[in-house]
Structure formats: C-alpha cells, structure tokens
C-alpha cells in the first residue's frame, strides 16, 4: 500500500508543481499580491478579483480544516475577506500579503474559539475528494482509505499543531512567517510542525495500528 502511495506521489506531485511554475514563468508576468492590493486600494476591482481568485481556495481549506465545521469556516472566511477589504485603505506592503492575510485568518479563528467555548473536537465535514478516473479500482480504494486516515489524523491534531501544519502546507509559509502569524517563536513553530508531520506520517504509514 505504501509503495502504491509513493508511486502515485512520484508520478503526480513533481509534475504538477513544476509544470505550474514553468508555465507561469513563460506565459506572463503575474503581478505581486501587494501590487494588486495597492491597485484595489486605488479602486481597481479587477485587481482584487485576481488577488481573491489566487488565494480564496487555499484560505478556505485552511479555515475548513482549522474550524472543522463548514458553516463556521464560511463565516470566518467572509469575516477575513471583509477585514481585508475594510483595511484596504490603510494597507501598506510591509510584509508578504499571504502573511498578512493568514495573520488575519488566525486572529479570526482565535476570536471564533473564544466566542465558542463549547468548541467540539468532532469534524462535521467530509473531504471533497473525487476518485481519479485513471486509477485502477484497487488503487482508488487505497487512495480513498489513505485520505480518510489522513483526514481523521488531521482533525485529531491539537489546534496549534494543525494550525502550523496548515500554514505550512496551504499557505506555503516559512517557519519565520508562521511564527509571525501565530505570534510564537520560531523553535516553537518548528517543534509543532515536526510533531504534526510525524503524527500524520504515522497515520498514513501504519493504518492498522492507529485505527
């Protein structure tokens, strides 16, 4: 099963990421997030739409897995973008836009936790994964099982570790940027990320023991 997962990774993961970067570099020059935000500050709605399309899905997945409730994730998602929009007049590109955006999202999630003290640890959503049409039935079943285990392991992670892992995976932030977003020091963030990855790897590799 492990070999099947690794084969899948070798085939799909490097190809998709490198291809995206290569095409982006060759086809056109993408304006930076901060430049788009400054254009929106001057009233350019199209710039905001470009910025939004660039980050909406990643932010949504981050909030969905952080909150573990679709409705709450929806509310926080709107709250985050509402704050970004309202603060556009005062926006100054002192840091990466993603750092700025995920700091707002992190703070909104903290507020959400304070408002909802009866925060349950059970998730109420299932991942939207569709089976790959090219997969053999056996491989599709194994992938589906792996996803379920990873999903369950991710939801079982402590909030801080899950937060750091999602910031690393979804936002692509470095440890320093994660520290800036979460307000913790670099070593703490590194330690949380390491714990999270170890737990998830165990969940992927040893399904029988963890389940």
């Amino acid at each position, binding site marked *: 099963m492990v070999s099947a997962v690794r084969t899948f990774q070798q085939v799909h993961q490097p190809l998709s990421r490198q291809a995206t970067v290569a095409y982006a570099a060759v086809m056109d020059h993408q304006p930076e997030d901060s430049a788009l935000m400054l254009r*929106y500050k001057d009233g350019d709605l199209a710039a905001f739409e470009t910025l*939004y399309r660039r980050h*909406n899905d990643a932010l949504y997945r981050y909030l969905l897995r952080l909150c573990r409730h679709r409705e709450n994730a929806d509310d926080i998602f709107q709250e985050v973008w509402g704050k970004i929009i309202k603060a556009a007049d005062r926006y100054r590109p002192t840091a990466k836009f993603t750092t700025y955006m995920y700091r707002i999202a992190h703070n909104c999630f903290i507020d959400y936790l304070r408002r909802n003290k009866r925060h349950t640890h059970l998730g109420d959503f299932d991942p*939207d*994964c569709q089976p790959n049409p090219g997969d053999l039935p056996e491989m599709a079943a194994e992938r589906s099982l792996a996803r379920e285990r*990873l999903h369950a392991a*991710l939801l079982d992670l402590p909030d801080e570790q899950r937060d750091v892992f999602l910031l690393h995976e979804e936002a692509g932030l470095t440890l320093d940027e994660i520290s800036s977003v979460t307000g913790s020091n670099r070593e703490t963030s590194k330690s949380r990320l390491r714990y999270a*990855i170890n737990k*998830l*790897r165990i969940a992927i590799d040893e399904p029988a023991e963890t389940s």
Partner: protein
Amino acid sequence: MKNDRNDDQQVSAAYSDLASERAPKHLDDSVMRMAKAHVEHLPYSRWTAWSRPLAWAATVSLCLAITLEVTQVTSLLNSATETAPAEVTTPAAESDMDQLLYLPDSMADSIDSEKISPARSAAKQVANEPAPAPVLEAKEDYLQKREERPAAAAYKSAGYATSAAITADMPDSECSATARSDPESWLECIAALEAGGDEQAALRQREMLIDTFPDFNLP
C-alpha cells in the same frame, strides 16, 4: 535529516491529494459584492483622481476669463475716450464699437435698436457722449486743489485773499488783467512796481505769478 525531508514530502503529497476543496460559489459572490460595495463608497476613487486636474483647469479658465474681460473693458474705454472729443459720433467710431462688440455692420444694422443688448447700448451711449475737455478739467482741478492747500488757507487766515480772489479783485494800479494774462508781461509789470518803490505790491504780484504759472521759470 534526509528521512525528515522524505516524511515531509510524503505527508505533503498525501495532503495535496486530500485537500481539493474549493471555496463555495456563494462565498465568492458575497466577497466580491463586499469588495465592489467598498470600492463604490471609497472617499477616494475617481473624484480624487480627477479633482486636482479639474482644479487646475478651473483656475486657468478663471484667469483667462478675467484677463479677457479686463482687456475688453480697457479697450472699450480707450476707444470711447478717443472718440469723445468729436461731439457727433462718426460712422468710423460706430464701426469701431461694433468691432469691439463682435458685431459686423450688416448684422448691427439689421438688429433693431431696442433689441440690442444692454451692454452694447451702454457702450454706444458712452461713445456718443462728448468727453470733457481734458485741459479745462485739469485746470479746474488745479485751482480747486490750490484753494485747498494749507499754505493757501494760512494765507487767507492772515488777511490775504487767495490768488483767484486777488486776481479777480485786483486793482489795475498794480498789474492789469492784460499784463497778467502772460507771465512775461506780468514779470515786466512786477519789475515796474519794484522800480517804482512799491515793494509790497511787487512781492504780492510775484507770489501770484508763481501760483498762477507754477511752471514758469522766474529769473
């Protein structure tokens, strides 16, 4: 270290496979509505972008309008003053006025006089009125100012009549009106008075001469 990196890649790949959710359409619409509403209510936006050029354009237009107005009024007054001494308005002067008011003769003739604009009527009236003779006006002003001078007032309070009164009431025994009409003859009269030993009368006549003909260089 290498194992850690492999673990990272393995978990990242598994997570990439897992996390394929997309933001729902209704959230996209909601956020874009918020963004649009914010742009529409921006205190800046297009008005701010255009306010400075508009202000400059308005200032330049105002300056041009004032300059043109002042130039027109000045030229109108100048032409009116120039044509004033001829008491009867000549056709040439009227033609000048028409040119100033941007009306060709044919058009001006075709327009009924009652329908002529008030500004044009006033300008024509100014052009038709005879201007006061500049020399006479200047002399009257001079005499009036001379009467109002402190020295004249002191002279009057000391019992002396002012030059105008003196010249009017002066006996012909000192200097006759004919002699006073010309500074040269007046000076000869003064010299005759001095020669005759009438120093007071000579001094009085000299002062009157200076007052009446201030530009005349006494020897």
